[in-house]
């Protein structure tokens, strides 16, 4: 999302409503493609455009960063494991159920 300007700041004071809406819709368009961007599934020219936008839009850049971190945490979440006892108990139960049902 294009960063909003604090009142009194000069640089974007001259931004028209049209420009602002254009920037905002760009942010939303990018937000919809972020997973594909993170997963490297987009064409080179689209990636280039997104990177250019991110360089100019701190809000979008922060959003991508936190989404990347979220995905990364999911990918590295601890692996649940079974004990040997549970494993063999389960095997017995399955074979028993298979014979009785």
């Amino acid at each position: 999302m294009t960063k909003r300007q604090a009142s009194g700041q000069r640089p974007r004071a001259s931004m028209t409503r049209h420009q602002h809406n254009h920037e905002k819709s760009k942010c939303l368009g990018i937000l919809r493609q972020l997973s594909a961007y993170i997963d490297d599934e987009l064409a080179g020219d689209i990636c280039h455009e997104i990177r250019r936008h991110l360089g100019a839009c701190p809000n979008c850049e922060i959003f991508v960063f936190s989404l990347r971190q979220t995905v990364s945490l999911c990918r590295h979440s601890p692996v649940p494991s079974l004990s040997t006892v549970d494993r063999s108990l389960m095997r017995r139960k399955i074979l028993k159920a298979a014979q009785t049902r």
Partner: protein
Amino acid sequence: MGTSAGSHPPGSPSIPSQTAKVFDTLFRDHVDLVYRFAHRLCGEPETAQDLVQETFLNAYRGFDKFRGDAQVSTWLYTIASRACLRMRRRRKGAPERELSLEEFIPTSEGEFRLQIPIDGLSPEEALQNKQLRDALDTAINQLPKKYKMVLVLRDMEGLSAKEVGTIMGLNERAVKSRLHRARLFVRRQLSAQGHGQTMPDHEHAVLE
């Protein structure tokens, strides 16, 4: 049955002792994979063990239905996914809610700037923090099942979108769409549980 994830089982055995032998190999080679998946789907060990049993029981009975045109692991993921949905339907009747992309569109600057504060740590290091681990588990467990299943298969089990589509009976586009919503949901929930914070203005420019 093959001896490792990804191998193809031979044809259906004709006598019970052969079936038991094939089952033993299948169980030995894939029980950890199925348990890991089941635990991630169910969120707790007891239900996960029920799901593992249901999965292998169905696999035991369905050897003859396995056509060998998919990996054994994909076949087991498929059986487990269906069993999980059946178990959920038996337990509670509330319909699953859909996640709309619109609900994740930030309406304020603060929502854009939600942070996952892992302070420069690697994900492995960050996940040594129990509070963060619990928050992540809670966020994932709050996902509606069909979104959770995609996230677990894709981001946690590491399968491709195509494989996830095969398992869930979806096209790749639908898989990617669900995955994107699931990730946005988890990001927001993680932040909402106090694992996100807004950055002071002066730090914005520092982000790479």
